C-alpha cells in the first residue's frame, strides 16, 4: 500500500518515454495495476493459474507496445483494454481446445471452480458465477467491469469501443438474465 500512495501517474507516463527510466517506471505500473487487472481477468477465466498466465501476457503486451501509448487515454483504460482482449483471446482458445463454438457459453470454465483450491465460495456464490457464465463474453465483460470493478460507463466505452447507451442496455440485459437464471434454478 505504501507504493500505491507514492504512485504519480503523470510522472510515471513521463518516465515511460525515456529509455533509461522506462523499465523502472513500468515496474511501478505493474505494482499499481497487477491486483486490479488480476481480479478482472480472474472473474473472466475463473481459474487462478489461467488468470496468472493472462495477466503476464497482458503486461508483456503492454510493455512491448509501450511506444504506442502516447498518454492520450488513461493508462488504466489502455491496460484494461489489453487485459479484456487477452482474456477473451484465452477463452476462445480454451473453447477451441474443448471443441466448442466461440458463441457457446463459458459454463465449462465454471465447472472447474468447485475443485479449485483457490475458490472457497459457498453454493450461492458458485451459482452466481454459473449465472454470469451464461452471458455472452462481451456482455460478461460489461457486467464484470460495471458490477465488480465499478467502472464508469464513459471509461468502459473507451475500453470496449462501444457507446455508453449500448453498454447501459447490455448491463441491464445482463442483470435480467442473471435474475432469470436464479428463478429457473431455484
Amino acid at each position, binding site marked *: 500500500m505504501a507504493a500505491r500512495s507514492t504512485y504519480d501517474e503523470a510522472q510515471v507516463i513521463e518516465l*515511460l*518515454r*525515456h*529509455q533509461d527510466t*522506462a*523499465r523502472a517506471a*513500468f*515496474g511501478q505500473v*505493474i*505494482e499499481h495495476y*497487477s*491486483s486490479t487487472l*488480476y*481480479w478482472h481477468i*480472474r*472473474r473472466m477465466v*475463473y481459474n*487462478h493459474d489461467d488468470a*496468472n498466465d493472462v*495477466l*503476464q501476457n497482458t*503486461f*508483456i503486451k503492454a*510493455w*512491448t507496445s*509501450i*511506444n504506442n501509448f502516447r498518454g492520450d487515454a488513461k493508462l488504466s483504460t489502455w491496460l484494461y483494454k489489453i487485459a479484456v482482449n487477452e482474456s477473451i483471446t484465452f477463452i476462445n482458445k480454451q473453447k477451441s481446445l474443448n471443441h466448442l463454438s466461440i458463441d457457446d457459453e463459458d459454463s465449462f470454465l465454471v465447472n472447474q471452480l468447485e475443485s479449485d483450491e*483457490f*475458490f*472457497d*465460495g*459457498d453454493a*450461492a*456464490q*458458485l451459482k*452466481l*458465477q454459473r449465472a454470469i457464465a451464461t452471458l455472452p463474453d462481451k456482455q460478461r465483460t460489461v457486467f464484470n467491469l*460495471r*458490477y*465488480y470493478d*465499478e467502472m464508469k460507463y464513459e471509461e468502459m466505452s473507451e475500453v470496449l469501443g462501444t457507446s455508453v447507451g449500448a453498454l447501459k442496455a447490455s*448491463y*441491464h440485459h445482463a*442483470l435480467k438474465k*442473471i*435474475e432469470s437464471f*436464479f428463478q429457473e434454478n431455484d
Partner: protein
Amino acid sequence: MKQEESKILKDLGKDPGFKVPENYFEDFNKRMLDSLPEVEIKEEKSVVKKPKTLWVSWRPVFYAAATVAGVFAMITVFNSVNGSTGSQIQKLANDIDKDKNADELIMSGDANEYDVLNYQDSVNMNLEKASDMPSK
C-alpha cells in the same frame, strides 16, 4: 449503480469467493519485472523553437497580397485585351467612315477581313433597323 442492482446481487455481495496464494502479488510483481524483454523506447525528439524572423511573421500576409495582385493583374490583362479589340474596331469604323477603302486597310495590316465583315454586318443591321422604322 445501486438502483441498477437486483435484489439477488445485493443479497450475494461482491465477493466471488476467489482466493490467491499467499504473497501472490508481491511475488508476481517481482517476477513480472524480471521477465520483461528488452524494448527500445522511441523517445520523442524535442523540437527547439526558432525565434520568428520578420519574414516568417509577415510571410502569410505577403502570400495573400501576392495572390490578390496576381488576380488583379490577370483581370487587367484580360480587360486590356478585350479593350484593344474594341478600340481596333472603333478605329476601323472611323477609317471606313472616312471613306478609306477596306482593301487598303487590310493590305496595310490595320484590319483583317473578319474585322471588315463584322463592321459591315453591323452597318447593314443598322440600315435594316432604319428602314423598318415608320417614316414620319
